[in-house]
């Protein structure tokens, strides 16, 4: 089955429980159509680069999906009229990658704001990027 990844931004005043319920509700649309949710990622309450529907911050959730197009189309339709979701996007991918650089936790409930994040070692890409500089 084709692989997709869906990112949606939920309203900032949603509680953690509401957000997880919303994610579960959307996941159910895929599983009902015999699709599979490969992995879920919560990217935290991030501040948006510009205001979206009068929100300046939002919860980011990423779903890695392995399902038929019909299931994804239904998901997009539901996300379109859900008032808690301020922005969403679905992209086709060749292959699902592991944890993205924005990864915070798998579900919103696991995320603890006070917890000091463990400083990751710079990846190979970061080392390359440190040398990249342009004089514009």
């Amino acid at each position, binding site marked *: 089955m084709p692989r997709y990844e869906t990112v949606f931004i939920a309203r900032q005043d949603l509680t953690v429980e509401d957000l997880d319920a919303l994610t579960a509700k959307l996941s159910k649309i895929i599983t009902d159509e015999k699709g599979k949710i490969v992995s879920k990622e919560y990217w935290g309450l991030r501040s948006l680069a*510009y205001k979206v529907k009068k929100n300046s911050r939002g919860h980011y959730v990423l779903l890695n999906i392995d399902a038929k197009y019909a299931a994804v189309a239904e998901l997009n339709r539901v996300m379109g009229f859900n008032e808690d979701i301020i922005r969403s996007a679905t992209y086709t991918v060749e*292959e699902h990658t592991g944890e993205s650089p924005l990864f915070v936790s798998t579900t919103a409930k696991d995320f603890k704001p006070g917890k000091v994040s463990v400083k990751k070692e710079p990846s190979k890409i970061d080392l390359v990027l440190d040398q990249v500089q342009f004089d514009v």
Partner: protein
Amino acid sequence: MAFQKPNQNNAGAPQAAGDENYIKVSLVNQSVFIRKKKSCPLRTIPLAEINYKNLRLLNKFLSERGKILPSRITNVEVKKQRALANAIKKARHLALISQIKKDLTTN
């Protein structure tokens, strides 16, 4: 201004002697310095890593105003420049990076 043309009159200039961007070519009765072709800065990074989630990478290839830098300046190879442009546009749609930065402090 930001868009200065690179100085192309340097070929053969004596001050280029110690510069590693130039290569010395000996002709019959004179030597000329020719500008080396710069290689792609992303040559060691696989194409799959250039996606909209890798914000640190994308921000390297944006100007102060948030515009995509042309490959003429960055020397990114064609396939990766295309992937980069698509990734930046996806990240803009998801409000991960701004469409344009207007409140720049003017010089």
